[in-house]
């Protein structure tokens, strides 16, 4: 099959430029206001996700199966997506570190409950922004992942 090239101009640009609408500055301000409306339910969901991660880790024992690994990965990814929107940037970063750890462990068919538990403790710590040394916690998690599951040995 030979490659075909098609030039296409999206109608969206013309729609956006049509008279009327809102000013960018007002739209962004309104978006922040809208996000404030859902802050509480989203943070409540974060706490719920953390509780589930604690339970999954406790149940996993010394050798989690692939289903448990995937569930921990997906829930950590959800925390990563939500926490950063509501000013919990370090918590979001820590959740990303947990995703990276689980991904490497899955590729190596390995498991490290202590490493996962350290991430979960950090997530609990970073859930409350008044705690200090938040950036150093995330940096510590990155170093831990490099030690437990270095990238070069990944499958």
């Amino acid at each position, binding site marked *: *099959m*030979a*490659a*075909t*090239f*098609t*030039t*296409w*101009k*999206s*109608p*969206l*640009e013309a*729609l*956006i*430029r*049509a*008279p*009327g*609408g*809102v*000013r*960018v*500055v007002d*739209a*962004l301000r*309104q*978006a*922040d*206001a*809208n*996000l404030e*409306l*859902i802050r509480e*339910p*989203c943070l409540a*969901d974060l706490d719920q996700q953390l509780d589930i991660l604690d339970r999954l880790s406790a149940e996993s024992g010394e050798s989690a199966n692939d289903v448990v690994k995937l569930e921990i*990965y*997906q829930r*950590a*990814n*959800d925390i*990563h*997506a*939500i*926490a*950063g*929107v509501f000013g919990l940037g370090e918590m*979001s970063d820590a959740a*990303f570190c947990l*995703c*990276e750890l689980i*991904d*490497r462990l*899955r*590729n190596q068919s390995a498991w490290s409950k202590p490493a996962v538990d350290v991430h979960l403790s950090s997530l609990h710590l970073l859930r409350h922004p008044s705690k200090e040394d938040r950036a150093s916690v995330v940096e510590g998690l990155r170093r831990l992942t490099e030690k437990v599951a270095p*990238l*070069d040995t*990944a499958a």
Partner: protein
Amino acid sequence: MGLFRNVICKILTYQVWEYIVTNIDPKSWINFDKARFLLLDDHQQGSSILSQIIRAFGVVNFIPCTTIDEARQAVMEHELHLILINANLKESGVYEFVNWLRRFDEPPNCYSPVILIAGHTQRSHVERARDSGANIIMAKPVSPASVLERVIWAAREKRPYVKCATYAGPDRRFQDLGPPVGVAGRRFDDPAGAEAEPEANSRSAMGG
């Protein structure tokens, strides 16, 4: 090999970012009254965040979908001007959905801008995400400004759409520098004189 891959990823990320920055004037106006968006996200809070953001932009017509089947149905029934997809759906097949869309032979939907919104991406999925046919992959966590910037960038996109046996979607080359220095071009649309002065003939995908 891992180091090489990381370097290539960083170069690609830098190049893409260089072209994304659109410098939106905060005093300019945007009008999404007549635009129709599709939002595919199976995570309730994630979907809620995106919905609140695009509502604030003035998007009144958007179709929220929580499964790929629902999204396929929406593609077949409605004209869509933009498609926002959570790349981390619990359900597998998100990249295949984008590929199906690009091979869906009914304009305008097969050319609708697709923004994949990705959190952590599994190592085994990175190439599939790149080759899915999405216009852009943006990183979570999102912010209103980052979403607006990408939406406007996607609307202004002028890259041609490519379809071949192994890929369907916007041209993955963000910049056309012509053939390598000292090599005659083989394509009919190679920039004239590119061999002598490749920098002077580069074409940006931004266009405006």
